[in-house]
């Protein structure tokens, strides 16, 4: 504000970058000094993955304005293709960090392709119909990965559906084992890798939103007919946002999967999609910082509630309902507005 005058959006974007970096540095310092518990340590990578998932879904729901109930499907695509790529590249690339990058890039690419293909028919629909079709695609992807067998041997990759017909040569290895999922995944995901992915995601999303394309996407969200009448190609911009969102989810899925030794398709079901949607809605539509905080807080919350043992998911549900009731309550909103001097003025004007 002193030398360079930044507008409100840019300031907020830099604030988001800054907070992510600060959070990363603090957590990294804490874990190197041994101040973090082992539970928190184990949750760092999943938190990063969920944060990226929340930001990418926010692009679809908040910026594009289309409700998607199958976001976990893209995570699944990214996880399975990314891990397969990382395992297949296992011998050729010795460095774990590069294998992680390869995995995430392959995951992102496959998810982007699937997102693009799904987007073409899906984005013709509107509202709840679009929501149900994304749900359906999520379930279809889950069903296919539950019955997919992929093996690798000296002759290359072998893929079969429904039953193991890969007929691997001597020394071959079954990577995806249908309902068993992928076993013996190299645990190469790191917190640093996750934090870098979050930063890359933020850079991509902020640049997209603040570009000409981003403004077109938001114009489509705010008024489709008006946007179309001034010559915006609706399908193109919808597909753009949807594909970017899918690609980021794919990278997150890849990161997520390589934090565990085994991963099954049922992990990425309807409930996971809903979980991420909850992050987005609680964080605020179109608000990336909100998504990050909500994703991190709600991933930690069930763990923090562990002292309630059996009651923790019940408490989680009640907290969820109460937060939604409170944030939509006029008395409560007015009460909160008192603490925001900047916003108060605005409300008085309107």
């Amino acid at each position: 504000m002193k030398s360079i005058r930044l507008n409100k959006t840019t300031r907020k974007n830099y604030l988001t970058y800054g907070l992510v970096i600060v959070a990363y540095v603090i957590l990294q310092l804490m874990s190197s000094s041994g101040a973090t518990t082992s539970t928190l340590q184990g949750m760092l990578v999943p938190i990063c993955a969920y944060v990226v998932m929340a930001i990418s879904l926010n692009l679809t729901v908040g910026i594009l304005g289309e409700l998607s109930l199958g976001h976990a499907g893209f995570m699944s695509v990214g996880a399975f293709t990314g891990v397969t790529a990382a395992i297949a590249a296992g011998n050729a690339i010795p460095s774990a960090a590069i294998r992680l990058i390869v995995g995430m890039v392959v995951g992102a690419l496959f998810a982007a392709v699937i997102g693009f293909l799904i987007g073409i028919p899906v984005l013709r629909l509107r509202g709840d119909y679009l929501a149900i079709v994304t749900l359906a695609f999520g379930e279809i992807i889950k069903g296919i990965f539950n019955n997919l067998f992929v093996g690798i041997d000296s002759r290359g990759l072998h893929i079969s559906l429904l039953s193991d017909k890969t007929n691997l040569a001597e020394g071959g290895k079954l990577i995806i084992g249908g309902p068993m999922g992928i076993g013996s995944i190299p645990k190469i995901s790191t917190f640093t890798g996750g934090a870098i992915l979050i930063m890359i995601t933020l850079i991509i999303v902020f640049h997209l939103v603040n570009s000409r394309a981003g403004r077109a996407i938001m114009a489509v969200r705010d008024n489709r007919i008006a946007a179309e009448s001034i010559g915006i190609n609706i399908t193109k911009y919808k597909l753009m946002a949807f594909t970017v969102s899918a690609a980021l989810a794919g990278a997150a899925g890849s990161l997520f999967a390589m934090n565990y030794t085994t991963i099954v398709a049922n992990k990425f079901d309807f409930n996971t999609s809903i979980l991420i949607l909850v992050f987005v809605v609680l964080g605020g539509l179109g608000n990336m910082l909100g998504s990050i905080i909500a994703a991190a807080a709600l991933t930690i919350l069930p763990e923090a509630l562990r002292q309630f043992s059996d009651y923790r998911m019940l408490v989680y549900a009640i907290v969820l309902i109460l937060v939604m009731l409170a944030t939509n309550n006029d008395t409560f909103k007015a009460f909160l507005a008192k603490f925001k001097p900047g916003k108060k003025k605005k409300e008085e004007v309107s």
Partner: protein
Amino acid sequence: MAFLSFLISGISLGSIYAIIALGYTMVYGIAKMLNFAHGDVIMVGAYICFYATSRFQLPPLVGILLAVVVCTILGIVIERLAYKPLRAAPVLAVLITAIGMSYFLQNAALLLWSSNPKVFPPVVPTGKISLFGGQLTISYVTVVAILCCIVIMLALTWFTSKTKMGKAMRACSEDKGASQLMGINVNGTISLTFAIGSGLAAIAGVLLCSAYPTLVPTTGAMPGIKAFTAAVFGGIGSIPGAFVGGILLGIIEIFAKAYISTQLSDPIVFAVLIIVLLVRPAGLLGKQIREKV
């Protein structure tokens, strides 16, 4: 004969989906919200009936009635506590609340009734009807499910078209503000819709568990999603649509299981749904609303 037997079991499964979908579609029509907790109301209904008949040795009919009563009250309470304060809130806020309610019911059931699967006692007498000299056998549950669905369907059609309350319901779903000006008790009507939907969910729960007798706290989740799909399939908000959508979904599922692959039956069902929606974007019997600029 195999084809006929698959068809009948498809219609039977479809009838159960249709009964659940009716609850979804009525609530959607009037409150314009996707009630994700609906699937879990099914589960609660099934548990109530299970405890009434197997623990307290009540006759099955009393068990079913008890389940219907409890679920009806549950539906009204859920609507009053969680959804009513959010009438004016954004659609997504209501959706998340409904999801929260669904988590709540599942976890409450987990605490109350534990995660051990319960074997649901047959509410409908076990036995089979043999036709064509034993070539075609139909179990009683199948017949009861189909009959139940037809009776419910007819009763609902009569209710919404002939009675004052039913007309109020249709008026509210078309225009709440105008209905209020005409002296219709909008809140009461919405509560009534939730009550009917939840009562139907209880019946569906009992039928579902009689046909597939394993009962766990997540029993309602998948049928809930399928029925929701069925409601959209037929055109959400339309009562005959939910009926047609449910029946077709059941038939497709059973045929996919029988002729293509058991594991891939769910993906096939959803793929058919997508194709139908691409051809008819508002569902089979949904109203195609033309946009005016």
